[in-house]
Structure formats: structure tokens, C-alpha cells
């Protein structure tokens, strides 16, 4: 039994921290009208690719680093803590989709390019209402000679604009399958996403040529969803801690009525509560990472719990952070709002915490039956 981070984990986290503290600069975002494209989204990616992070979760057999999910959350925690603006989410999501749904040949061909930092991915599955399940607004795939043609729309596609290839969920003969499409073959329109540290687009496919992922389609979304839950939860847990630390530091310095405001119980007790939530969120993420690493039967439950808890904790912490800062924390020129918006968007992107709690109960009902 070992619930503690090893020195290796700590060292991995520390090196990611050093790298990102040096490379991430949010100042260009602290001007109204800023977009992530102007903040070095692509430049930071180049450096991240140089670190080998695109291949973090890609098995060695396909040229990746084959690290486990505990390693992953060490790094994602740091990208979350710094709001590192770079298209990592899309590439990870796409890689997981290929890992779950690709044939051996497809994995080798596609993931090798990703691991080498030569191909960025995105994963397009949500419809315009934000649903990840098949529905009326489905992309339709038709066989045409040796290949497939896709027509329809996808929305809330993280990193679609920056991607080289997009994995698209579509309906083929009434069944959901997954296809690889060249970015150049689709029209991506950037959404005015409130979290400007992340680039989200809607995608329009009008007879786009596509390659069918030939493996087990049924496993793709559960596999990817659990890992995206982990990814967002890891960002959120680290962001919760960052918002807390930031507020604590400010409360120690800012003086009112002859004392640092952190001397007032109203501030102290609110921050103590956030400390409790930060601690719980961190534990949830580490446990979920472990269950995914060892393919534990409760991995789905653990990842779902982590996402529901950490995203709400993050929302609370960033709200409280702004309240501790006072009006200055409400201005665009401070970075507080970037965290607030990341938190809020993390709590919606894959469905609300309530939806995840519903999944938790359903899991437990099945377990009890």
C-alpha cells in the first residue's frame, strides 16, 4: 500500500513546474479582447513538444513515453496551475480515442507522428447542445468507394483550430463510429469561449474525406471520457490549490483596519474551508489516476468522482479568491478571472458536476444489483 507520492513523482512535478514557471506568461491575456492565439499558444506548444509531453501517454511501442496516469497528473497539475495556454488537451483526447478505437496499424501510424511532436490532434464528439451521446444532431458518415465521407457539425471541440487531424464521432449505418479527418478538410470556427486560455471551436464537415478507426468503437467514448475527466480534474485540483495560495498570499499582505486582512476570521475561515476542498480534490485526482493506471474496476467511478468534486472545488476557490482580493480581483488586468473562467468552463465542458453525480449513483446502483 502506498498512497503517497514518490520522490520520482515529486521530481517530475517539480521539473514541470520549473519549465512552466519559466515559459508561461499570461500577461498578453490581461488586455480586454485578447485571445489565446495571441498569447503564444503555438510557441508554447513547440516547447512542450520538445519536452516530449505529446507522447506522455502513448505506449513505447508507438514511440511514446508510456507513462502512467499518476505521472500524467503530475504534469497536468502544473499546466492547470499555470493555465499554460497550449493545445495539449486536444492531442491527449485524440490520442486516447485512437488508442481505444484504432487498429494496430492505425495506432502505429498515427500515434507515432503525435509522439514525435509532428501531429496535433483534436477530438470532436459533442453536438451543438453539448451532448456527447448520439442524438438528432449527429454527423453522418457514408462509405464512398474505399473511403468515407462525413457531413454534419460538431461543437465544443477543444483545440480543433490548432490540430492537424481531428477524430470525429459520426453515425455509420446508424451506429456510432470514429473517423480521422484532416484538419484542412473541415471548417473550424472559433467560439467566443469565456476561458480565453483555451481554444474551442465548432467544426463543420461538408463531405469531408475520412478514415474509419477500425477497432472497437463501443469502448472509445467511455475510455476517453474517463481520461478527460481525470485531465480536467487534475487541472481543477491544481487550480484550486493555486487560487488558494494566491488568496492566502494576498491576505497576508493587504492591510485594512490596521491589520492584514488575513487576520480577520471572516477571511481565515473561508480560506480554511478552501484548504479542505483543495486537499480532498488532490486526493480524488491521485486515486483516480491510480485506478486508471492499474485498470482498477472502480476506475470509471473514481474518475467521475474526481471530476465532479474537483470542478466544484475549483469554482468555489476561484470565487472566494476574487472576494478576498476585492474589486481589484474583478478587473481584467488581474489574472484572477482567468482562473475563475477556467474553473467554470471545466465544470461544464464534459457535463455538469450533477451529471457526473448521476453517473456515480448509476454506477453504485449497478454495483449493488
Amino acid at each position, binding site marked *: 500500500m502506498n498512497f503517497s507520492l514518490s520522490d520520482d513523482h515529486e521530481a517530475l512535478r517539480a521539473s514541470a513546474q520549473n519549465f512552466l514557471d519559466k515559459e508561461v506568461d499570461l500577461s498578453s491575456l490581461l488586455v480586454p479582447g485578447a485571445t489565446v492565439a495571441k498569447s503564444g499558444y503555438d510557441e508554447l506548444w513547440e516547447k512542450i513538444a520538445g519536452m516530449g509531453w505529446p507522447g506522455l501517454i502513448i505506449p513505447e511501442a508507438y514511440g511514446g513515453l508510456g507513462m502512467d496516469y499518476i505521472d500524467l497528473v503530475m504534469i497536468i497539475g502544473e499546466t492547470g496551475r499555470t493555465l499554460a495556454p497550449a493545445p495539449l488537451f486536444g492531442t491527449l483526447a485524440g490520442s486516447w480515442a485512437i488508442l481505444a478505437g484504432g487498429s494496430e496499424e492505425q495506432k502505429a501510424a498515427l500515434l507515432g507522428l503525435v509522439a514525435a511532436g509532428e501531429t496535433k490532434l483534436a477530438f470532436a464528439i459533442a453536438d451543438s447542445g453539448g451532448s456527447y451521446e448520439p442524438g438528432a444532431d449527429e454527423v453522418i458518415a457514408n462509405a464512398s468507394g474505399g473511403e468515407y465521407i462525413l457531413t454534419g457539425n460538431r461543437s465544443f471541440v477543444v483545440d480543433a483550430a490548432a490540430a492537424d487531424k481531428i477524430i470525429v464521432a459520426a453515425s455509420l449505418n446508424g451506429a456510432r463510429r470514429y473517423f480521422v479527418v484532416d484538419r484542412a478538410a473541415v471548417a473550424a470556427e472559433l467560439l467566443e469561449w469565456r476561458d480565453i486560455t483555451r481554444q474551442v471551436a465548432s467544426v463543420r464537415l461538408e463531405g469531408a474525406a475520412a478514415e474509419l478507426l477500425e477497432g472497437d468503437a463501443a469502448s472509445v467514448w467511455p475510455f476517453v471520457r474517463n481520461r478527460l475527466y481525470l485531465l480536467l480534474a487534475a487541472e481543477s485540483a491544481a487550480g484550486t490549490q493555486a487560487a488558494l495560495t494566491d488568496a492566502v498570499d494576498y491576505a497576508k499582505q493587504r492591510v485594512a483596519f490596521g*491589520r492584514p486582512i488575513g487576520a*480577520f476570521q471572516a477571511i481565515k475561515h473561508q480560506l480554511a474551508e478552501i484548504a479542505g476542498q483543495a486537499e480532498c480534490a488532490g486526493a480524488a485526482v491521485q486515486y483516480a489516476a491510480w485506478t486508471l493506471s492499474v485498470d482498477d474496476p472502480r476506475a470509471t467511478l473514481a474518475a467521475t468522482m474526481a471530476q465532479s468534486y474537483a470542478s466544484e472545488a475549483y469554482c468555489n476557490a476561484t470565487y472566494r479568491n476574487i472576494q478576498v482580493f476585492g*474589486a481589484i480581483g474583478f*478587473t*481584467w488586468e488581474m489574472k484572477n478571472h482567468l482562473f475563475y473562467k477556467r474553473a467554470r468552463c471545466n465544470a*461544464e465542458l464534459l457535463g455538469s458536476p450533477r451529471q457526473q453525480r448521476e453517473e456515480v449513483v448509476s454506477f453504485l446502483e449497478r454495483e449493488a444489483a
Partner: protein
Amino acid sequence: MTIFFVRQVGKVVHLVYGKSKQLEEQDSVMDFNFPAQDDPRRIEIREWFKNHPAPSGKQIAERGLAAANWPEPWGLSADPELMLIIEEEFARAGVIMPAVSNPIGVNQCGQSLLTWGTEEMRQELLPPTLSGEYLWCMLFSEPSGGSDLGALRTIARRDGDDFVINGQKIWNSAADRAQIGVVVVRTDSTAPKHKGLTQFVIDMNMPGITVRPIADMTGEENEYNEVFFEDVRVPASRMLGKEGDGWQITMEQLQTERQSMTKPGAVWGSGPSARELMNGLIQTGRIKDPLIRDEAAALYVEGELLRLLSMRHLSNKINGKPAGIEGNVGKMVASPHGQKMTDLAKRSQGVAGMVYNKDVLPLPPKHFGLFDNWDYAYWFSPATTLGVGTQEILKNTIAERVLGLPRDVDPTARVPFNEINKPNVKAA
């Protein structure tokens, strides 16, 4: 109808029941109905609007409707019930009230001129204020001060018939559009922090004043400004009250502002209320979600109670009762109420709500001011527990002034302001 008498018999109080035609006719019982449609005062106002379908600010002011509760010649010495009639008739005529378009000018600063201004100032400043020509701002907070408003550092130094102001103000609503404002400054640094303050009326185009709008987290610059003072000369005749009255005048203005925020609107009493939230959820069918349903019901109830508190406040005035605790308590309840409302509206939208998207829930065609969509109101909402005193300061005020609990210790409250930063005070 039955009423009752109270009779003292020895030390025991008995109730004896019986009828009293006289009291019955007084109609002294609670009555949540609004003044009747055929109230003669209402008919008179309505007639005026019929003859002035698009009245100018000057016409409104000259008719006494801009601040009808004020005494003549500015107002009509209207009692609160007539005020309510006037408010309803403005709404009926589709005309925005001066107290709504220029609240700081009419409600806070104009009132201060009445109470604290000289006759000369009133004659000069009130007509353009009531006609809407002068939009006002209040310049109170400073970067170093925040909740501790009394610690402000902007200095006014006497120089002949003028005072010369140097310093910086921040979080000033409407300062970028205002022609005129009130500023509170320190005129005596040797007095304790709340004692050495004075208010002046200043023209915002005076040399040395620079206004910089602040972009807030919504991405807009609608609300706040910074105002810099560099050797701004203001005549001593523009002093409100006398030297040292600044703290009291400022507190009066803030208290008036807070009382006006005890309303069910989502943002400081403005914007859509829980009635609109509920209707929007019903119209979109989102009310069928059991969790949204329960939350929306709780918010609807709370919103109706805020409405009652604001009406009771008005009613107490009508009936000559002293103002209750509703002013402070109301804002304490109203700010998080608005935050919860905008949050539910946003959550009802799901992931689509994370995109700039005004189409959250349908709203009726009604004037909701800046906050005429839930999206903007949501992203603005963290400010509502910060502005006009933080939620923490407000709770302190309620605990101390309403509940009578002991006051927080402020070691800087009683020493001369210019000695506060000396080590012995800091250590206290």
C-alpha cells in the same frame, strides 16, 4: 370586523374583544394592495403624461417629478405613497425616471445638497441635476483603502480661497460620463482617520483630473473608473457641510445607496428578478429538471421576500414608522441572491453558456438596464458582494449596529492619521 382593546388590570394584561366602528373606518390593518387606479393623485399625474408623452428632463424637473419627495421648489413634498404612484406612472408612460438614469445625482448627491449644501450651491446645481443635464459620480474608494474607507489618503490642502487636491480614487461608477461629482478627501492628517475628512463638489472637467475607465472581468468598461487628482483646485465654496463632516456625509450617501439595493433584481437590485428567471425556465421547459426546479423555487421564494422587504421599507415610510433594519439586511440577502440566480440561469444553459451568448433564458420586453441578459449579469455577478461595501463589511455592520454585538478592534481608529504607520500602532 372585530378589533380589540388592551386593558391593564393590576399587573395582568387582559384582552377584551369588541367592535369599534371608529377604528374600523381608520382601516389601520395591513394592506398589501397598491394605491388604486382611480386615486385622484394618480389621475393627475397620468393626465400630465398624456399631455407630455415624451417629456424633456427639464419638463420633468419643472413639474416636480424628478425628486417628488423633495420640498418645493425642487419637488412636491410627496409622501412615499405618492412616490409609488409616480414610479408606476413613469413605468406606464415608458419614461425612465431621473432617479434611475442618474441615481447618484438624484438619490445620493442631490439629497446631500439639500441636507448639507449652501443655498447658493442648491440654486446653481440642483436644476441641471434634476433635469438630467448633470450626471453625478461619487469619488470615495482608494487603491490603498478598500473596505477600510476611512484610511483614504487623497489630500486637500488649503490655499487661499481654494483647496488643492492630490491623490487617487478608484471603483468610481459613472466617473467617465459624469459632469460633476462629490469627492471625500483628507483635510486634516493630524486628526484620527475618520475625523479629518471633508467632502467637496467638483466639476469633473477641472484641470488636473484624469479619468481612466477600468475593464472588468466581463471584458466591458461599463462600471468602474480610476480618477487621478493632480493639483486640482476646488473653491472652498464647494465644500459640503464643513471641514471634518466628510465621513458622516459619505456614510449617509452609502447607506442610501445600500438601501436602494434591497430589491429582487439580480445585480444590485437591477436587472431581471427571480420572477423572470422562473418564467424563462418555464418557457424553455428547463423547469422540468428536478434539481433546477427545486433551486428555482427556492430563489423565487427568496426573491418575493426581498420584494416584500423593499415594499415594507416604503410602507414604513408611508406610515411614519422609523426605518427598520431592512436596508442593511436587504443588501446582505440580495447580493448572494442575485449571484445564485445568475448562476442557476447559466447552469441551466450547460456548456453552451460558456460561450459569449446572451440567449440564456427569454426575458420579457422590459427595461432591465445594463443587465438585460443573464449572460452579462452572470459574469458581472462576483462584483455584487464587493461593491458598496463587501459582504464581510456588511455582515459586520449588521452584527454590530443591528444585533449590538461588540465592534471589531481597529487599532488605527483613534490615533492621528499621520501616526498610524509608526511602529507602535502597527504592533497594536
